[in-house]
Each structure stands twice: as structure tokens, then as C-alpha cells.
């Protein structure tokens, strides 16, 4: 398998799906001529033309809602919202329209709508361009949420999202775009939603890591291996649906668990995962369920402050030591 960056993997997934199905198209702010502010859709305008790679006005509600309307009459749109931070500018079209259309119509609406959006702190982008808003939408039944951490997962999950008939919020971490990994070439390579990936096996502690925190968890696991601590790293890959089984099985094995995400701690995705474990895996637990995430303040601009607020490998290492040495 060839190596691709995460960004290339996303582009490849989109391009393959657009070649495959004329009803798929991409629209969003600066996705065409500019190639996306993160460069993800570079070159796609040249291949697919401006009908199918569309620059839009700065109007998040219209972008998302128009994606929904097109989906309802048989298209399979991919819409891009430049920063996850802007999702609430079109929030109603997500929570009250796209997420609910099928259920409210008695199962009749088909909503093959993929909303691609960036997440995470790219460094000194401050409070309105650094958020990880995944959990803002987890309480809303009807929309699926993907949080790929590797190029291969990004490709496989995105293709599943685009081919599916449900609305999906697809969170791409800005600091992962440049990361490389091997990605299957098979044009029909897809990955199922609701299937966690056991990224590294271990026996002492389970780290459930989301998006960019997978890398940091692996780094922590390497470090801790040197101390004789065997760490299992699990990436849920999708938050809705959530593969509870794999998480619980791992905790049954290790009896210690840490949940790591870049989102703010309070009511982040980790809250739901911790609650699931507290309900369904409590008998396996030997110690507290520790969450690691951004501290509960808006992301600050100054690098000193930002680094302090964001969760890092050292936070994971410290938490593991605490759990194991209790």
C-alpha cells in the first residue's frame, strides 16, 4: 500500500466517490478555486468542474441546508464547513432538519448528506478557531459522527459516509492533515461505522483515544512500555454509533481506563464514554475512569497558555502512572 497524507486520503475518498456517482458533489466556502483553506480539495475543481466543486457564499445555514435539500431529492452531497467552530452558524439545519428528517417523516426521507468539518487547535488560532465540537451534536439523535485519526480511517469512513443514506458529521483534525499512513488503493475500500479499532494491544491500562489523541496515546504507550506498563490504545473512530462492545471488552481485560480527547473536558465525548463504562463496565473497573481533555476555558491565543490548556502526551503518561500505581 502506498502512503498518503490524511489530507490526500480525504481528497481521494471524495474524488473516487465523485467519479463513481454523478450525484455526489462538493460545496463549501473556498473549496473550489482556493482548493479549500486546508488544501484538501486542491485539484478537484480541475477534474470535476465548477458544477460539482462549488464555492459558496459565507452562509453556513444555507450551505448545510442546501446540502440537505439536495439530499432529499436524490443527490449525495458533501458539504464542507471550514471550521467546526462555525457549525452553530448553521446549527439548526443540523439538529432540527438533517438529523430529524428521516424519523419525523416516518422513515421516508433519505438523507445521504456528509458534512465535512475541521476540528481541533491548529496552534494560536484562539477561541473561535480551535474548538473540538463533536459532543455538541452527540445528544441529537439522527446524525452520525465520525472522528478519523489516520489516513486510512479517514478514507474508509468518508467513503462509508458518502455512500450511506444518513447524515454524517465528519470531523477532520487540522493537525492530522499532514500526517502520513498507508491507505488501501481499492476503490471500494470502506470502513464500517460503529467499529472501534484496537490500535495497540496491551494489558495494564486501556486508553480510549479520539482523533489526534490517538497519536499522543501511542506516544505515551511507547514511553510507558519502558516502565513496564502495557497500554492498550483503542480508537472508537465513530462516536455515533459507538462501539461499546470493544471498549467494554478492553476494560474487562485491563480494568483501568483513560479517555483522551482534545475537546473540552466538561461534557466532551469522553463524558458519554465514561458514563457508558460507569453503567456497563463498572464491575471490571479497578480505579477511577480518568478523562483527559482541554481544560474548561476557551482556547487561549498565547502558545504558553494554549499548551497548558490542551491535553498532551505527558497528561496521559501521568494519568496512567496514577492509575497503575494506585
Amino acid at each position, binding site marked *: 500500500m502506498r502512503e498518503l497524507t490524511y489530507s490526500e486520503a480525504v481528497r481521494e475518498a471524495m474524488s473516487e466517490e465523485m467519479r463513481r456517482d454523478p450525484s455526489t458533489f462538493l460545496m463549501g466556502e473556498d473549496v473550489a478555486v482556493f482548493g479549500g483553506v486546508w488544501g484538501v480539495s486542491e485539484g478537484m475543481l480541475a477534474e470535476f468542474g465548477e458544477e460539482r466543486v462549488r464555492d*459558496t457564499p459565507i452562509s453556513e*445555514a444555507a450551505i448545510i441546508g442546501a*446540502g440537505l*435539500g439536495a439530499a432529499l*431529492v436524490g443527490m449525495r452531497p458533501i458539504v464542507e464547513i471550514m471550521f467546526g467552530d462555525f457549525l452553530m452558524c448553521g446549527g*439548526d439545519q443540523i439538529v432540527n432538519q438533517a438529523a430529524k428528517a428521516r424519523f419525523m417523516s*416516518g422513515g421516508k426521507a433519505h438523507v445521504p448528506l456528509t458534512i465535512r468539518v475541521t476540528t481541533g487547535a491548529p496552534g494560536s488560532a484562539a477561541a473561535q478557531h480551535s474548538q473540538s465540537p463533536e459532543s455538541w451534536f452527540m445528544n441529537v439523535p439522527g446524525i452520525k459522527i465520525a472522528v478519523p485519526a489516520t489516513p486510512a480511517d479517514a478514507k474508509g469512513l468518508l467513503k462509508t459516509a458518502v455512500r450511506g443514506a444518513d447524515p454524517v458529521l465528519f470531523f477532520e483534525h487540522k493537525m492530522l492533515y499532514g500526517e502520513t499512513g498507508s491507505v488501501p488503493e481499492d476503490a471500494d475500500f470502506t470502513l464500517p461505522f460503529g467499529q472501534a479499532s484496537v490500535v495497540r494491544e496491551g494489558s495494564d491500562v486501556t486508553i480510549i483515544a479520539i482523533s489526534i489523541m490517538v497519536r499522543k496515546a501511542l506516544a505515551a504507550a511507547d514511553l510507558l512500555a519502558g516502565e513496564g506498563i502495557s497500554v492498550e490504545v483503542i480508537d472508537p473512530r465513530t462516536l455515533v454509533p459507538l462501539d461499546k462492545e470493544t471498549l467494554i471488552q478492553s476494560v474487562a481485560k485491563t480494568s483501568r481506563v483513560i479517555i483522551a480527547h482534545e475537546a473540552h473536558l466538561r461534557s466532551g465525548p469522553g463524558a458519554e464514554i465514561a458514563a457508558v463504562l460507569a453503567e456497563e463496565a463498572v464491575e471490571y473497573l479497578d480505579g477511577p475512569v480518568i478523562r483527559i481533555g482541554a481544560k474548561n476555558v476557551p482556547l487561549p491565543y498565547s502558545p504558553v497558555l494554549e499548551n497548558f490548556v490542551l491535553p498532551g502526551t505527558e497528561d496521559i503518561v501521568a494519568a496512567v502512572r496514577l492509575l497503575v500505581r494506585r
Partner: protein
Amino acid sequence: MDKQTYSPELLTHLFRQMTLVREFELRAIAERRGGLIPGFIHSCVGQEATAVAACAALSQQDVITSTHRGHGHLLGKGGDPKYMMAELAGRSAGYCLGRGGSLHIADFNLGILGANGIVGGGFPIAAGAALAFQMRKEARVALAFFGDGAINEGTFHESANLAGLWRLPVIFFCENNLYGEGTPQHKQAPITDLARRADGYGFPGVIVDGNDAIAVYEATQEARRRALAGNGPTLIEAKTYRFRGHYEGDPQVYREPGELEAWQARDPVPAFRARLLASGLYDEAQLAEIEASVQAQLDEAVAFAAAAPAPAVEEALQGIYADTHEGLVF
């Protein structure tokens, strides 16, 4: 009104459907009082001409987005009162299997993309459907119904801009009934002729007498022609009035004295009836027969709804996702 311009099919259709809308609303209100219908009703009594005549100018392949005050739109677009009444009664025989209720009725076969409980929620959806038609080069338009209150939502602006920019085949159809809930239109916007707003998006805005079915029909037909010719959207503002409360039970403290009576004197249903008689194309017996057939249809609809079983509780968990993932509850 003459035979040359308006076929008997059209005139009969307009009269019958307007009568159906009026009577459907009155039945639904009665059945709500009677306990068959559990939820809120926002009736469109007084606004039958806009709903029916605008839809009459569309083809079945065209689509609409509707609102909280949507029964007329749905019936106009071909909705079956049987399934509507069953939905209002919360039965699985209803359009949404009892899951949606009045605010969420949809029928994708009829091009009804959905009523909507969110004021302004339908604008972007209509624009998106129109985009799909344009991209696929289909001769279809999308029509978004909305109120004088809804035009002040940000979604109107974003959608009108997008539609104007891309010359999407969409019709923005405003039923200006002078109120948004209890707040008069002139306390919701600094202008009274909302059609003026179209200019800011580079497309025409037209004002039409919303209680005149023929005028509404013609304006919508013209807007549809424009859209199909690739000339983009039209904003139609139909001036009309709602005769009943915002919802059933609304104390209506907010009306200007005499206002309701003045508008009732221009009730669109009897007005159209009178016009048909005056035209000599219809006699009293013909119209009475149509009216009787409406009543029969509604008798049937109510009976159908009342006889339909309530949903089984498990149905509550069905129909939320298309793609299920075995073994996973989510």
C-alpha cells in the same frame, strides 16, 4: 375569468381544493376538541387561495417546503386528507406513521419535502432541492412557503442570496397574513411590502392579492416559467389574512378592531365560488355537488383516522437511520 384562459379542470380543481382545505381545517379543529387529535393545530383558514393556487401552478415533480401552517400547502400539492388526518391523530396509518404530526408531514412522492416546526427552516432546503434540479437539468422547481414573520430569519437571506447567485429554480412564496403569532407584521419589519427585499438578491419581487386564487395562480405560473427558463428565483408576496388564532386556543388579544371582519368580507373561498357562478361556467348545483364530495371525502378521512390503530410502542425506535449497524444501539 374565461374558458379560453382557464380550463374547467383548473377552475374545478381550485374550487374543490380550496373547499377541501377550509373544511379539512374545520374538521381537524373539531376532532381536536373531540379528542381524536392530540397536538397543536395552526390552521390556515382564510389562506386557502395562496396554498391551493400556488400549488396548482406547479407540476407533481416540483417540490415544496411547507411550514407550521401547512395543511393547505399539503392538500394543494396533492396530499391525501386520509393520511393527513391519521397523522394528526397520531396513528401509524398517517403520513409519518404517527411520528411527525401536523408540523412534520412529508410525502416525497408528491414533492412535499416537509412541513416544518422551525420558522425559516425550509428556505435552505428548497434552495438545495432546486440546486439538485439545476445540476441534473430537470425541468422542476422548488417552492418555499413561508410567512411574513419567517422572512426575518437569517435563513431567508442566506437562501435568497444563494438562489439569486446561482439562479436556482426556486420560488419564495410569502404568505403575508399580517401577523407572526401575536406580533403584527409592522412590528416585525420596517417595511410593509416584503417583496421589496427581492431586489437585494437580484431577482424580482411581486405582490399579489393572496385572497384571489387566479392572481396567485398566475403569479406562481409566471415565477415557474422564469425559473424553468434559467432566469432564477422570484419572491412572491401574497397579501392575505388568517381568520383563526395562531394556534387553536390562541386568545387573539392582538388583533386590530374590525380587522378580522374586514378580511372576512374578502374570504377567498366564497369569493371564488361567487366568481365561478358569475362567470356562468358553473351553476349552483355543480358547486354544491363538489362541496358534497369534499364532505364525503372528509367523512372518510376522519373515519379512517379514527379506525386506524395507534402505533405499537416499538415503532418509536424505528426509522431513525437508514443504515443500521447490527448489535449496536445508538
